[in-house]
């Protein structure tokens, strides 16, 4: 279990102090929030930083609030915080639905939404949903603040648009209009704690173009723009959904690995898409399955 690296540890109390540490010499720094991905990566020598900057003592990074029609999720907000938030349940229940499928209680108590998109493993749960919700990633460095559309965030497995010296302070998620319906469906090997073999997020807003994204079926979470356009043009009747399902193979590029074959992932993306769109449409209409009901 031992980590065999020599590490320096910093726990700055403010953002300014954080940025100052980050700007000091070009050390190999890893930012630490919940640590559920960082710590095993250190142990397995997947990363070999020489210093850790722990963000948990920085004021203000744990904020979770609705501000100007968007949900502000600070970089220290854990999945359990999302699940326990009345605002999330009232305004964006699909976020709690997704959070409830991440790993286990003991991980969710520690793991953060922002950390999940920063570690950016292809199977991350938050990625597809934030894509479907049109979230924005807010960064700060000594050069100032910067905002990245989540569509431009993921650059590859474990690679994102973050630059050296930057910290993701929070993400903002525009709250969908009332009357929206959304669903997160996830395929995993067991019904308990497991990584996603494939997943899909669907957000339907009245009159607007549907937003749909897949996870674990490409190097990064991916938007399904052709499916979105088709459903936008044709509506959500059975024929349109059939046609959308027919486009799945053009939208995703799953691989075969120890968790699933390409063929199964592809086929299950089709099933998940159908079930998630149906559930989201049902929820928009007020008669869909309760959030958290497994669709797979």
């Amino acid at each position: 279990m031992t980590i065999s690296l020599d590490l320096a540890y910093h726990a700055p109390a403010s953002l300014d102090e954080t940025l100052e540490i980050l700007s000091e010499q070009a050390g190999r720094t890893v930012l630490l929030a919940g640590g559920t991905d960082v710590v095993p990566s250190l142990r397995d020598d997947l990363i070999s930083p020489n210093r850790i900057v722990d963000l948990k003592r920085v004021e203000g990074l744990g904020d979770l609030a609705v501000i100007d029609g968007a949900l502000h999720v600070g970089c220290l907000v854990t999945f359990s915080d999302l699940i326990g938030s009345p605002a999330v349940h009232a305004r964006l229940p699909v976020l709690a639905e997704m959070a409830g499928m991440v790993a286990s209680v003991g991980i969710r108590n520690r793991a953060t939404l922002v950390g999940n998109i920063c570690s950016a493993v292809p199977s991350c749960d938050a990625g597809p949903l934030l894509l479907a919700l049109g979230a924005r990633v807010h960064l700060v460095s000594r050069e100032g603040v910067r905002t990245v559309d989540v569509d431009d965030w993921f650059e590859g497995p474990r690679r994102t648009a973050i630059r050296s010296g930057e910290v993701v302070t929070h993400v903002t998620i525009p709250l969908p209009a009332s009357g929206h319906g959304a669903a997160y469906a996830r395929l995993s090997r067991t019904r308990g704690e497991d990584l996603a073999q494939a997943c899909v997020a669907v957000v339907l807003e009245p009159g607007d173009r549907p937003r749909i994204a897949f996870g674990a079926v490409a190097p990064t979470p991916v938007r399904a723009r052709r499916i979105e356009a088709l459903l936008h043009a044709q509506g959500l009747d059975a024929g349109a959904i059939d046609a959308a399902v027919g486009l799945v193979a053009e939208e995703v590029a799953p691989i075969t690995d120890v968790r699933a074959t390409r063929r199964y992932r592809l086929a299950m993306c089709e099933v998940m898409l159908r079930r998630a769109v149906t559930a989201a449409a049902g929820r928009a209409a007020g008669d869909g399955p309760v959030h958290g009901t497994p669709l797979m």
Partner: protein
Amino acid sequence: MVDHTFVGHSTPRIDGVEKITGAAPFTDDLDFGPDLLHAEVVASPHAHARILGIDTYLAEQVPGVVKVVTGKSFQSTFGLYLEDRHIFAQDRVRFVGEQVAAVIARTRTAAKRAARMVIVSYEVLPAVFDTDAALADGAVELHPDLADYGRVPWFHPRPGTNIAHWRKLRKGDVAAGLRDADLVLEDTYTVPRYAHAAIEPHAVVAELSVAGRLTVWSASQSPYTQRNLFAEALGLSHRDIRVVTPYVGGGFGGKAGVTMEIIGAALAMTVRGHPVKLHWSREQEFVNTYQRQGLRAHLTIGARRDGTITALQHTLHWDAGAYVEYGANVVNAAGISATGPYRIEHVQLDSLCVYTNLPPGGPYRGFGYSEFTFGLESHIDRLAHGLGIDPVEFRRRNAVVGGDELPYGAQMNPSGLLEAIDRAADAIDWGIEQPAPSPTVRVGKGIAAFWKAPAMPPNAGSAAFLKFNEDGSVNITVSGMEIGQGYLTAMAQIAAEVLSVPPDRIRVETPDTDRNAYEWQTVASHVTWGCGNAVLAAANQARDRILDTVHRALGHDVASLYLVDEQVRSTTDPDLALPLREFVVTGLEQPSDGTFKGGPVVASGSFMPEFTSTRSDPETGQGGKPNVHYTVGAAGLVLEVDVETGRIAVRTVALAVDAGTAINPVAIEGQIAGGVLQGLGTVLYEELRFDDGGRLLNPTLTDYKLPTASDIPDRVIPIIVEVDQPDGPFGARGVGEHTMIPIAPLVANAVEDAVGVRITSMPITAERLYLALTAEDG
């Protein structure tokens, strides 16, 4: 049935409070002070290679490193049944992960760092990763010295090949039996390798005192067997080795025999005066202990229209791995019992233990029976369907009963198989169709029967020491292991029944070979039976001493005396009520003269089956009595398949097992709930997968998926059948392993019932089932 006071009554575990409070010590919990050293192993990256040289210089320069040890220091072979292993690889490595050297350092970090700096140069050799490749003409030979390895007399290796043992069994005339059949069905079934995945990884601490005394603390099911192998491999007297085994965090066979513990013991020999600790990481746990062996089974069964099975031919090719010192006996056990619990006139079994360049195979709950029962019980179902006979009825017609002749000629023990089949079928409403809850879901039911005998040397012994304390409580020391099965509680109940002392006033201790009586190993589901008999003998001896004391002090006829409620009472003197606590240590005063009779009551008991023999004809397997008895049972299951995804939800499992006499019913229910889920894990989720170089692809619990609390059946119905085992303590026989044996074919049979697809290769994951369903469509 006899009504007992303690035996047969559900009794909360006597180790319950210790475990629930975190007080129960496990090996890694023991403290050893500042002179404790830590070891890390250097493992082979190759599946098969010649070792050209080992350069330890750089590793030795790492601060904190005490010593780097290689195979040069330890050249003797060892093994439980076949001596085909070395403590460290000598001239060649035979699987990815095999230990080549070890670093001993003052800290784990230093050991880990230095281990990476040991430079081993290899010449890579061709490797074989499955039985077909290993058995092919011209295949690379893994053990050219096979003929010279020490072995037990019932093993039959084929030097010059990769066959470490070939168990043959011939009964009747299979060709004639198949000609006599109305339906002959032939197919091949494959079972991959599995991991025990006990939550506690293997751990060992060993210390050679400056005076030459070796003490080993290990997480083990086999303290005495470990002591024996350490003595042989390290050249010490048994007297000078002490093995202490605290609680074990799950065994399932994975902590039987000796695996990594011998590395710890050997390393201690090189740093006299210092305890050395070796603790497997989860990755090492997967790769370098035992794995359940893979199996490719070719099965031909013939049956007549009336439902009589006429002949069975079962050829089992076991992927036993790089070393088979223990695993070859799994092959042997299957090779005499792979008929399943059926009366069959003509039988041919061939069970081949095949070396491959994968991690060593070995014992795993079920000991070969879980593996072959997948194909066998699948095949039985298919035959029943082919003959148009109900699968429950088909099994009933062929079920073995007490007194039947076994495949090797001996007689079957009393058996409640028919009752088990009937009760398991009833419990799942066999024959009654259940409605599907949604249009994409299909419901199916399955049934399967099973049997298993303890696989032991003919002279596997058990012993117990028992002593009374001043307050009339009792301490018992045995060397079976509490690995979770509830053994300590069962032993307490057996002694309680004889002594009238309640189980919660009896402490049964985990082993320390200096102090506790002998036990061969805690394997084979035999300790309730074998060690139970030893405890029973010890308790009887203690009772006899107590009654004799009363007789000598007070003059009562021994025949009139008995124990009840922790007192000695008399059938002839209603006034006699002597509390045990008043005299079991300090003796009983003789009224006539004030002298005392008796003294501290101590007793011992030992047991060995004196009717077993492994002497049989190597060409036919006929003769001898290799198995002490079989435990039988049957199970039924209801599941749902989502045909769009292949996902299976298990609704109900009913499992009936013939315990002889249930010593502790709640413990048997626990074995059923746990064994069922472990079986479901193997058939629904788990599988060890290797790349084409023999490297394990999923050596983590992230990707070796164990069932979680959300993956359990809606309902597990435990059914305890009780047909007395005449030579068991109070009629008991073991049930621990058996509860997982029927689960895989049970699921396969229910899946076919649900969706009409027969899967002949484990596991039946959602993905495999989906692919099979869609292949059928296309």
